[in-house]
């Protein structure tokens, strides 16, 4: 205990330093958001007279209610489908493929190495050819595809860890492949599915580039994407801009706070199993 104390102190100090570094930009943004309109706050001092009304104004001018709905629709279009397909593909690649088809998985891993920015231009032409430009499908369909490499990799890693005996026991108990998948594998995969769902939600909600490039109307974009338009429109009004940005951040932070337990647990589980 005695020898551990100095180490603990150092560790605590480091953690506090990290927290400050992480939180400082947000506090700075908050101070700016509370500054009176028309001023140019430097973000380093707390305003004498905090203008909480800036948040109400930002909510109204950015039509946050509509943006929330739009974001929710996109998330609902992407996440369940992506998670379902990734789970099935992960199971297939982990349990149903023989050595002959190992390379199939490599195709997905290859997808992981593709930088997102590299595919955005061809994606634009493809979406245009499909006639989906300026609809939410221009965001939903590409995102489902773009999430597959990671999703499949994630789920396959989980299914590889499930003992093969369980599959065989289910088979002998009379389960078809489908029943085994639905009644045995999916319930066991819940932590992995849960964390994948949360990750995909965050990535979709924070999706910026794709909506900005593929969808003109800010009301059809994700919240983060709409920030682009908001910035163009109110770029000179720093307090309002900061208030809007903070509002856009809020849902993800709230969600993370609600699910952080599951999130951390899921990540830890993966780490222990190796």
């Amino acid at each position: 205990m005695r020898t551990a104390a100095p180490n603990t102190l150092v560790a605590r100090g480091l953690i506090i330093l990290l927290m400050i570094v992480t939180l400082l930009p947000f506090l700075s943004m908050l101070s700016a958001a509370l500054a009176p309109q028309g001023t140019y706050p430097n973000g380093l001092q707390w305003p004498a007279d905090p203008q909480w009304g800036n948040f109400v104004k930002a909510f109204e001018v950015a039509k946050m209610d509509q943006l929330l709905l739009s974001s929710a629709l996109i998330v609902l279009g992407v996440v369940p489908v992506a998670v379902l397909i990734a789970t099935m593909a992960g199971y297939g690649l982990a349990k149903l493929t023989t050595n002959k088809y190992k390379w199939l998985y490599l195709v997905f891993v290859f997808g992981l190495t593709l930088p997102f920015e590299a595919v955005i231009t061809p994606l634009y032409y493809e979406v245009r050819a499909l006639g989906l430009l300026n609809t939410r499908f221009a965001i939903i369909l590409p995102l489902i595809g773009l999430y597959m490499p990671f999703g499949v990799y994630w789920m396959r890693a989980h299914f590889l860890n499930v003992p093969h005996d369980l599959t065989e026991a289910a088979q002998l108990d009379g389960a078809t492949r489908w029943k085994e998948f639905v009644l045995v594998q999916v319930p066991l995969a819940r932590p992995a599915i849960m964390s994948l769902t949360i990750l995909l939600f965050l990535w979709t909600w924070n999706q910026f580039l794709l909506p900005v490039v593929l969808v003109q109307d800010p009301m059809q974009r994700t919240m983060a994407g709409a920030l682009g338009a908001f910035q163009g429109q109110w770029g000179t009004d720093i307090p309002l801009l900061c208030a809007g940005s903070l509002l856009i951040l809020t849902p993800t932070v709230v969600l993370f706070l609600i699910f952080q337990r599951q999130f951390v647990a899921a990540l830890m589980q993966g780490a222990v199993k190796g």
Partner: protein
Amino acid sequence: MAELTLRSVYKNYGEVPVIKGVDLDIGHGEFVVFVGPSGCGKSTLLRMIAGLEDISGGEIRIGDRIVNDVEPRDRGVAMVFQSYALYPHMTVYDNVGFGLKLANTPKDVRDRKIREAARVLQMEHLLDRRPAQLSGGQRQRVAIGRAIVRQPDVFLFDEPLSNLDAALRGDMRIELARLHHDLGATMIYVTHDQVEAMTLGDKIVVLDGGIVQQVGSPLELYNNPTNLFVAGFIGSPRMNMLPGHVDDLIDDQVRISVDGASLTLPLPFGSVSKGDSITLGIRPHALVVSPDGPLSGTVQLIEQLGNETVVRVRLKASELTVVLPGQGNFVVGSPVSLGFALADIHLFNADKKRVRRPS
């Protein structure tokens, strides 16, 4: 009705043959044990019967059906895995009832069967727990319960007791025997523990290198091992094996010499010829101390087990294990002479096959 028949069954993994032509007949209600050293193909053979492993050649019948291409779930078999393979996310109740649920058994029937199985296995108080909250022995019971509720024609066990400690293994062995008696079902049981094999089996199948070495009742295997492998594998401590050769043939008698001793044995004419090398097998329990016995050597090592004494005796060129009743007082290094009854001798020819005595 669930006889099980295997006809020249083969299994290759790629180019590697693992099961090399197994023929076997298992009657309804028999308790058959597969034994053999690690890697001899016991699990593979069992999994082929279950349908978890493809059959490279030959034919497996259950009842009057050829099941080569029948899915595991349609074979009427249930299996208990060495790892138990319980579903971790289900309670014991649901684990046991999973197969019935899949078969769309009505809820009340299902409930009755699950509770009946729980009663038989004395695990009624465990029904609401999950596998993670059970001890090894309790998990084992659940795994067996899951097998018995489905009332299969054939039960398959792959080393079900090997994860348990010695005392629990003994208890479970007795329970399995009782279960077999109560259910009257055909059971196939894989183990590499020959005590389990001897005590549980109506019939033992000794496998080595993917080939059936001998099939028979425990005592048949013990009394009449067909070759050197079976002789060495069945019985504990291992049978002593002394190399020697045939000196002479006189009428129905042969004179052999092993390790400096000369013995005359009755043997049918033509079973061996002069000059053949042979191996003399004699079980540790068959040896007795006798001052004019044919085998003499010195005491090397003494193990007192209380009820009996295990003595290692060094002969001229080889060593013998001797198990003597009681706590006889021996001294390491002292000379000792050993004798035996002629009926207790096993003789094997150069091909490692048993040479039959006239009976």
